[in-house]
């Protein structure tokens, strides 16, 4: 299967760089998959799970805030926060839910409210899974 270069960058460090087969990105207007030869494309991110399909299998990371850029040389995702799903801790989700609730309460315009609501849904969805462990 054709591969293409992919980079996941957060302000603090470069999290992933290498050849991949497919990346599933949570876009603010819907999730989308990027494969080799995708058309040039820029989309903002919604808080969600980013999935990387490479030779070693799938890798899942939680991303929040930022954007994805597809250009002829590959895909770059810039996320303000990116954490591998395995490293997500219950406290982090609780914080996320709290932040999101505050954001919704104080949301001045629809964009911020929508993003916060998405974060809230995500946090709530993952909470029970984590607490059972």
């Amino acid at each position, binding site marked *: 299967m054709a591969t293409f270069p992919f980079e996941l960058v957060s302000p603090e*460090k470069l999290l992933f760089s290498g050849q991949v087969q497919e990346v599933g990105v949570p876009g603010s207007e819907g999730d989308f998959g990027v494969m080799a030869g995708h058309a040039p*494309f820029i989309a903002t991110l919604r808080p969600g799970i980013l999935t990387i399909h490479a030779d070693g299998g799938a890798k899942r990371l939680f991303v929040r805030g930022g954007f994805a850029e597809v250009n002829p040389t590959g895909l770059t995702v810039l996320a303000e926060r990116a954490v591998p799903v395995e490293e997500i801790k219950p406290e982090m989700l609780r914080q996320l839910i709290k932040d999101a609730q505050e954001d919704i309460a104080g949301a001045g315009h629809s964009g911020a409210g929508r993003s916060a609501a998405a974060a809230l849904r995500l946090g709530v969805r993952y909470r029970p899974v984590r607490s059972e462990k």
Partner: protein
Amino acid sequence: MASLKELRNRIASVKATQKITKAMQMVAAAKLRRAQTMAEAARPFAERMDAVLGNLASGVTVSADTPLLLAGTGKDEKHLLLVCTSERGLCGAFNTQIVRFARERAYALMAQGKDVKFFCVGRKGYDQLRRTFPNQIVELVDLRAVRTLGFVNAQDIAEKIIARFNAGEFDVCTLFFSHFKSVISQIPTAQQLIPATFEEKAGEASTYDYEPDEGEILADLLPRNLAVQVFRALLENQASFYGSQMSAMDNATRNAGEMIKKQTLIYNRTRQAMITKELIEIISGAEAL
């Protein structure tokens, strides 16, 4: 002439000081390396952000609905100077340099009849600016409690600035920090944050599809970009601070070494003079018998 005991005490005290400055130098060197890696790790993000925003901004024609962060308020009356300094001293002229640079800019702006306000990050710059501009400092962000600088710190600062901008408190925001060139050279730098400026890139205008549309992406990314710029400035500053501290402490250690040498010389000379004097006293006493 100081007594022997006094001299001995002074040498011991200088030696103790030298040990401290030496230790501080080594700590600064270790921290500098970490700060440098952090600054380097942050670079790709800032560069990509800049590239994409530059691309977007060049395609947008300024109109009534262009985000104000990019277009500005159309006025140039009220300036906010965001001055980033360190929380600790003992770092040579690091803070003084940044503050002097910002102060000169402030005087130049005030001479043109503009309204200047300060937003301080870091205690040291605040202390220095407070003396000359006691009524013009609007806020101080204290990062003393922060162990490792994170993106969240920059986000906090950016949010505060944007809140003030939206409240119409200023038209132009300029960021002052120290650019880390090398251990011995840190350059105070000014960067305009609002309205945002981007380097125009020639060519390489691949046509992108946007989702959502360009305007919305721009509105979403501009505030984030502000945080990224502040974060970069903070990291550069941190590296510069440790570089500056390292060379300052290196100087101090060397000075202490010289002082010890000089004092030891005086000490030995005095000691010998004492011995000679005592011998003369004994001999002349014996002869008198």
